[in-house]
Structure formats: structure tokens, C-alpha cells
């Protein structure tokens, strides 16, 4: 494996976060000195060769099928049952340890391992195809999907400070986490990706291109991701001394650790992508899996402008607001390249149990928040997964009709320009929070998925920039968010403020309540009246001359929703009185806009009677143009 600098012959710099005039200006400037030593780098693909947006139409609604764990005679039944429920795609994770026959020798053809037979079954049912290469492609397979010989090879294992293995649960045992910086592990992982990609590419002339290929570990959260605890593998750190968590002390060393960790992860993921591309897969169909929450992943922030990201939706127990917030954040983060979400149906052996109706409810929140393409994990698995949509024999389980209803409901969801207030939490905040973690060595990615924000996990006095601490930043965002939600104003936390000068984004030194009032004034024509206040979350979308309000109940009380003005419809019926919204449910209100000429007066807000003026005072962001298959 050749080092990146040798390959490209130039210095790599992290992509800079666009910063608007007047916004916080602290921006880490990663130089060659901050990068891992050349010998610990993987080849980086050219940063000038951007992947095309992996946005497909219609949206991918996939169910994961662990085909090697099922009897081959049942494959047809399983695929047909999932198609009947309304899924339009099947997601196939390829598990390294199942396909490896001997070191470097892989079997994709025999018996239940036959990828071609499975792909043929999916295509014959008229469904689209998502394939995950991993290396850690799914969390139901034993041993993190990795062959035992690799897990047991000390050269491949991540290390703690005392050079112990980093054990992670793999019920009923524990297994050592591999080191993504280890040359030995990189070699093994790339060998697997190459073989899997080549096997997949060989099928494309016959069965057509795979609609989406996912590489990378996750998106289930890793249970050990503390930047100070791991990774102390010699290939990861060279001669660098370990660093103690700084809490609210001097941050420089901590941030260097986080940037070093981020660079290694990006280099690893890009090497996996490059390997898949070299072996015949199209770069513009590849997405990258991110473990844990994007809100706490600097790697996700830096990769989002280059690759579509695959992210987990939080479990139901995280609550509506956490799911809503994370999906809204992820959708905004991945605006240019798209996102693919993993929603839950059941869980692996080590996951807390989740009832079927609750997992469907969590998916409903994610979809209402803007999730477009998704995979239900699990559609069907033959072993070690509790609560898949289908039983191991392909029979729909009791909660399967709920998925059918949900999939049908997705057709009513709007796509288009978001009309929203924005709370900006850019890369520097994420890096600062990670560096100043006070919950070490608890897994930040998992805590993020459970709804904790970067500011909640970091030391209060951590400086983000001169005069601004983490506590002050978090307090301001939380206050503004509370006020906006109480007033039913569409709001989202975003990583990067829209470059639009008309964006309704909170300025760094703006009083949170003053901002909430300003946003409410600016967006007043897309703000419904919700009773009781705060009982629902609102998203406003403009789409081809229509405006849609997606209103999601987030409490156990029945709420009432009154649209902002006249002319709104609910399922094509005019809304003339407050609409009742059951706990946990969502509704979509629509306002048809009459075609009008654009008046040149400025300062008028979007509204029922002035549709074309909306962009003059509200933030609009376009969904990427969709590409037909």
C-alpha cells in the first residue's frame, strides 16, 4: 500500500468550512504537520474528482436481507413478501467472514453465498439493489463481520494506552476492535473490499448497475470511539505520546488528537472507496457509512461534500426531538451528495429490545424530518436478529402492516426547498466538543445517537473562539431551539450556514430569544398554530408552486393544528377548522400557490398570498436535482 503523499505528490488540506461574513471565524487549519505520518496514510483519492450526487428517483425504500443466513429455497418468498409490503429495494450486506474461505480467497458463488442468485432474485422481483461491503457491514453477524484470523492477529488490533486490545461486545463474547490505522488491517480490509467489489462488478453487465454501494463501518455506533483511549497502535501514533483529556484546560493537544483521528478515518474510508472503484464499481453510486451520530463526527462533516453518507436513525427511546434534530442536521449536512438512513426494525442480540410499533414510529419521525432514502434493518435475517419485518421463514410479522402503511404514507411527503430557521453548529464546534469530552471513554457516537448534543458532552468552559465557551454556545442554541419549537417555527441545527444572504440563521452574538422572534416574523406565513404549544415539530417545504407543512406530534397529548391563513388543504380537503393530531402521528398540510409575477419589492415574507416572495426573506435550500436511473 503506497502512502497518500507519495501517490498524489501534494500536501493534503482538510476542506474548509464555508463561513459567512460575521459568523464565528475560528476555523482549524489542518496542515501537513497535522496529518498522520506518511507511512500511516492510505492513498487518498483526488479531491478534485467529486462524486456525483447519489440521489435517485424515486426514493430508495430498502429492506435489509441477510441472505446467507436464510434457506435459499425461501429467498423468493422473502423478496416477494418485502415487495408486497411496499419496499422498492433490497439491501444486501456482504459479510466478510462468511465469504472468506481462506486468507485472501473468497466465495461469492456457492449455495447460500451466491451473490448472483440473490441479485437475480431481487431483479426478478423488479426491485432495486443496495449492497454493503463493510468491512463491518451489519451488526448481527458475529465478530464484527471480520474473519477470526484477522480479529486474532495482534498486528490488526486497536490498542489502548497500555497496548491492550480494545474489546467490544460481540455477544456472548468480546472481540478486539481492529485498528483502521494498522497497515496489516488495512491490507486485509482492502483485499476484502477489492474482492467484493469485483464480484459485484461482474454481475452488472447482466443484472444492471447496483443502485447504491455502501462502504465503511457502521452505521451502527461503535462502542469504543474515545479519541484519547484509542487508538494507540504503533501505526496510528508512531512516537506520539498519549494525551490526557484536557476537559476545560488548554485545548490544542486535544484538538490535534481529534484532527489526527479524523484524518485517519477519512484516509481509511477513501482508500476503501478507491479500492471499490478500482475493481469496477462506479464512484457516483458509492456512499460512505459513518458510525454513530454525524453531529459528533468531524469525519462526517468533512466527507459530506464529497460522498453521500449513510447514517443511523436514533432508536425510538431517544425521543422524537432527538430523532428529528439528527435527521434534520444530517439532511442539511448532506445536501450536496445525499444521505441514506438506517431505520430500525428490531435489533441485534446486544441491542435493547424495541417494539415493532415503536420502531415504525421512529421511522415516521425520521421521514417527517426529511429522510428520503432509507433501509429498514432488518427486513429478514435467519439468525441473531430479533424483530425483523419478516420471520426467518419469510412470513410477515405482526408489525409488518405498520411498515406497509408507513411506506404508503411516504408518497405524501414533500421534497423541495426547506423554509426554516437555522442554528449553526459548524465543524469547529464538533471538533472542540470531541476534544473537550468529559464523558470519556464513553462512546461519543452512541451518546450522540441517543440525543446528546456536542455541547452537552464537552466541558462547559471549553473555548470555541475568544469570548465564546461551549456552555454559552450550547445554552444559546438550546434556548433558541426551545423558543422556536414552542412557537411552531420550522427549525434545524445545521453544520454549515447557507451561503444565502437571506437565510434565517442565528448570528453568533444574537440573543436567542431575539432570534426566535426574528425568525418567527420572517417565517410567519409557514408557522401553524399548535395547541398546546410545543406539542408538535414543524417542517416547511416549498415544492413546485406548493407549500407543504409537515407537522409531527412529539408528545403524548392530542394536539390541534391550525394552518397559517386560508387556502390550506389536508389530503385535498380544505382545512377550515383546527385539525386534531394524535400523539406520535404526523400530517401534511398543503397550500397551492397561484402563479404570479414576481414583484420586485423586497422585505415581504413568504405567505399564502405572496408565494413568489418567499425567498426574499426566508432561507431556502434546494434538494439536489434527481437523476433518473
Amino acid at each position, binding site marked *: 500500500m503506497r502512502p497518500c503523499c507519495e501517490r498524489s505528490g501534494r500536501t493534503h488540506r482538510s476542506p474548509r468550512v464555508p463561513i459567512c461574513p460575521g459568523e464565528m471565524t475560528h476555523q482549524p487549519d489542518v496542515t501537513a504537520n497535522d496529518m498522520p505520518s506518511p507511512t500511516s496514510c492510505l492513498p487518498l483519492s483526488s479531491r478534485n474528482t467529486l462524486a456525483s450526487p447519489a440521489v435517485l428517483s424515486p426514493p430508495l425504500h430498502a429492506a435489509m436481507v441477510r441472505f446467507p443466513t436464510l434457506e435459499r429455497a425461501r429467498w423468493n418468498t422473502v423478496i416477494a413478501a418485502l415487495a408486497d409490503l411496499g419496499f422498492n429495494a433490497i439491501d444486501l450486506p456482504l459479510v466478510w467472514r462468511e465469504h472468506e474461505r481462506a486468507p485472501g480467497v473468497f466465495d461469492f458463488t456457492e449455495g447460500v453465498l451466491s451473490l448472483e442468485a440473490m441479485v437475480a432474485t431481487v431483479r426478478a422481483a423488479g426491485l432495486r439493489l443496495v449492497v454493503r461491503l463493510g468491512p463491518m457491514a451489519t451488526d448481527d453477524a458475529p465478530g464484527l463481520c471480520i474473519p477470526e484470523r484477522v480479529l486474532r492477529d495482534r498486528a490488526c488490533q486497536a490498542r489502548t494506552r497500555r497496548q491492550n486490545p480494545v474489546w467490544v461486545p460481540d455477544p456472548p463474547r468480546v472481540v478486539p476492535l481492529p485498528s483502521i490505522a494498522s497497515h496489516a488491517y488495512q491490507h486485509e480490509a482492502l483485499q476484502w473490499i477489492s474482492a467484493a467489489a469485483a464480484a459485484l462488478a461482474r454481475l452488472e453487465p447482466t443484472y444492471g448497475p447496483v443502485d447504491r454501494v455502501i462502504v465503511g463501518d457502521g452505521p451502527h455506533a461503535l462502542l469504543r470511539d474515545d479519541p484519547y483511549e484509542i487508538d494507540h497502535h504503533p501505526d496510528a501514533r508512531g512516537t506520539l505520546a498519549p494525551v490526557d483529556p484536557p476537559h476545560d484546560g488548554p485545548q490544542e493537544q486535544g484538538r490535534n488528537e481529534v484532527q489526527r483521528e479524523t484524518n485517519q478515518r477519512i484516509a481509511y474510508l477513501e482508500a476503501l472507496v478507491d479500492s471499490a472503484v478500482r475493481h469496477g464499481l462506479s464512484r457516483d453510486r458509492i456512499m460512505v457509512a459513518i458510525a454513530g451520530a454525524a453531529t459528533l463526527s468531524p469525519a462526517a462533516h468533512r466527507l459530506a461534500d464529497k460522498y453521500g453518507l449513510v447514517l443511523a436513525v436514533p432508536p425510538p427511546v431517544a425521543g422524537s426531538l432527538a430523532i428529528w434534530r439528527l435527521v434534520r442536521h444530517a439532511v442539511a449536512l448532506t445536501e450536496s451528495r445525499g444521505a441514506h438512513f438506517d431505520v430500525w426494525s428490531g435489533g441485534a442480540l446486544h441491542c435493547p429490545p424495541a417494539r415493532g*410499533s415503536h420502531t415504525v414510529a421512529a421511522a415516521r419521525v425520521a421521514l417527517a424530518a426529511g429522510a428520503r432514502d432509507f433501509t429498514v434493518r432488518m427486513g429478514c435475517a435467519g439468525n441473531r436478529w430479533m424483530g425483523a419485518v419478516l420471520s426467518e421463514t419469510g412470513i410477515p410479522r405482526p408489525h409488518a402492516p405498520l411498515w406497509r402503511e408507513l411506506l404508503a404514507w411516504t408518497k405524501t411527503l414533500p421534497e423541495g426547498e426547506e423554509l426554516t430557521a437555522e442554528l449553526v453548529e459548524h465543524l469547529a464546534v464538533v471538533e472542540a466538543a470531541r476534544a473537550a469530552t468529559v*464523558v470519556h471513554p464513553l462512546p461519543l457516537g452512541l451518546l450522540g445517537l441517543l440525543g446528546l448534543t456536542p455541547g452537552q458532552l464537552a466541558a462547559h468552559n471549553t473555548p470555541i473562539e475568544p469570548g465564546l465557551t461551549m456552555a454559552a454556545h450550547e445554552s444559546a442554541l438550546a434556548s433558541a431551539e426551545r423558543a422556536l419549537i414552542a412557537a411552531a417555527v420550522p427549525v434545524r441545527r445545521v453544520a454549515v450556514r447557507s451561503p444565502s444572504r437571506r437565510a434565517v440563521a442565528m448570528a453568533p452574538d444574537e440573543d436567542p430569544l431575539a432570534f426566535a422572534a426574528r425568525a418567527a416574523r420572517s417565517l410567519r406565513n409557514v408557522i401553524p398554530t399548535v395547541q398546546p404549544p410545543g406539542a408538535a415539530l414543524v417542517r416547511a417545504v416549498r415544492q413546485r408552486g406548493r407549500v407543504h407543512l409537515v407537522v409531527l406530534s412529539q408528545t403524548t397529548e392530542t394536539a390541534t393544528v391550525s394552518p397559517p391563513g386560508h387556502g390550506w388543504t389536508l389530503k385535498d380537503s380544505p382545512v377550515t377548522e383546527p385539525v386534531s393530531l394524535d400523539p406520535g402521528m404526523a400530517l401534511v398540510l398543503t397550500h397551492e400557490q397561484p402563479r404570479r409575477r414576481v414583484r420586485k419589492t423586497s422585505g415581504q415574507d413568504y405567505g399564502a398570498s405572496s408565494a413568489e416572495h418567499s425567498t426574499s426573506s426566508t432561507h431556502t435550500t434546494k434538494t439536489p436535482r434527481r437523476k433518473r436511473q
Partner: protein
Amino acid sequence: MISVDTQIRGFDARSWHRLVTLVAPGLASRAPHEFAARATEEGGTLLVLYHQTRILRAIHTHRGVVDAAVWPGPENMEALARAHGARFVLAAEAGALEELYERLGGRLRIDDDAITLSLVTLGALRELHDEGELHFWPRWIDQRIPLPTPAVLHRMFDFLLPDGQCAVITLFDRAEIDTALLIRRRGEALDRVYGPEVLKDIVGPLGGDFRRDYRIIRTAIERTMGPLALGLFAETATIHSLLRTDRPGAWAEAIALRDVVIDPMPLWLAAAASAGVVRAAANRSRGLITGLGLLGALSPTMRRLREMADAVTDAVTGFDFERVLGFDPLRVLAQILRRSSPSGSQPRDHDTP
């Protein structure tokens, strides 16, 4: 115990949830929109990370991050729990969890089975507790009680489920199988862990009365899976309340009244059930004297009062859980479950539209 090769299947979301939350109600699923309502309820666990006298962060399992600035010390954890409506507290000095991971890192091996893994983990936790780095509230098990060795626990496993035999728990909700667990041992590990879907496939249609159906279930399992060492049949609600009761002899009484059917009933269990009556009398006497405090259940007085009952059990089986483990696992479990929040499971949840 299960291994990497154990086949685990046959659980839908509801039946798995029902089974797990019987013994771990804290893991109960909640709908997303119930988050705010749940946060107002008493219960849950408070995780505290502190450094010297300063709390770095306090995270409540129902409420997320909560405001707490001063570490009151391990002796005042109860007050901390009450202040935040928590029923359990786990506190760790900064660096303690890293130390725990390092100790586990140095002691565990990839081939360790679940028993060894659990004991090594408990051993490391106890060390850090003894060193004053980790704190738990409330305490149920006297810290002087030594951990059993892997050999003792393996012997217990051999005793409970001999090689080649099966065990089944079948819980009913009125006329339907609510949840079930069917296991079979092959060698040192379980090779099959099946849920109600597989059990229903094996058994076929049932009459709807577990007091009659148990015979059909037993016959079907013995025909298809192997000899049955233990079968427990009851209503889920019965087991739910028995697991939480502190009434001595409640299990024996339930078996006698056939609210719980055990078939086949192993000799050791028959002896224990018979001894339950004696135990009940002894415990009632003890309860009058000392009350039923948390640690009281493990006091030396109670041991003396139980000698007669233990003698009955030991004479037949040569095996006594409390003597082996140093504590009564069912009693400790009941105390934990009584403190835990309700699992929220309804007899009929709404997984079907």
C-alpha cells in the same frame, strides 16, 4: 451459555421485548413521542462522572443531561438520586472507566466464554469499587461475598441443564403464547435458542389453556429437539409478579396452586419447592424480627433461620444457590425489579394495526 455458533431465531419484536423486560424492565422500549412524558416520571438510572468534588457530567437515562455540579460523595448518593428522581446511581471518578477498560483489556481473551467474561468483568468492577473509584447505589450484595469461580458456575450450568437436554419457558397471555424461550445444550454451549415462532411451528395448534397445553408442548419438544430437562408454563402476568414479590414461599405456593406449571420438574427444583413452605415460615419469622431491608436478605441471621430448609434441599441435591453464590439471585433480582420502572408493556400492545 450461548456461543458464536448458537442459532438464535423465532422472536418477533413483541415477544423478544416481553421476554427481556420481564427481567430487565429498564430496557423497555418507548415510543419516540413518550420521551417527554417519561422524563417527568420517577425512575431510571443516573450516571455520574466526577473529578474530586466536581461533577463533570450527570446523565439520566430518562432525562438526558441533568444539572448537578457538586459530587456529594458515595455516602450521599441516595440524596443525589432523590434529587433527580433516579432509582439507581452509578458514579465513576474521572479515569476510572479507562482503568476498567485497561484491566479488562489485559485479562480477557477472545475465547473466553460468557461465564468467564462475566466473572472477569465483575472482578474488575469490584476492584475499582473497593479502590473507591466506582460507586453504585443502592447496594444489594454484601461486598465481602467472594465471587464464585468459573468452575463453580460451570458446575451450576451442568446441574441446571445437562448436555443434550432442552429447557423451555412458555408464557401465555390468556389463550395465546405470549413469549417463549426454548434452549438446547450441546457440549459446553447452547446450540439452539428459539423463540415462540419456532415453538409454535414445533408444537402446532394449542387449546389455549396452559394447564393442559403443557403436555402437548413437552411431547412435541421431546419429539423434535431432545429430552426436556425443565419446562415452565404460566401466564406472563403471574411470572411478572412472582419475580417482583418479596413474599417468602410465593414461588412454591404458585407451583402448588398450578398458577405455575413445572413439567418436567427436576429433582432439585421439587426439593426446593417443597422446602419453600419451610423457608416461608422461617422468613416470616425473620421478617418480624428484622424487617425486610435490602441487605437484611443476606444477613447471617437469615442464614441460620434457613438452615432447616437448606438441609432439605442439600440432602436431596447437594446443591444450593445461595450457598454457592453467597446470595440468593432470585431475591436480589426481585429487589432490583421492584425498584425499576414499569416496562410499559401492555398485555396487548399495538404492534398490529
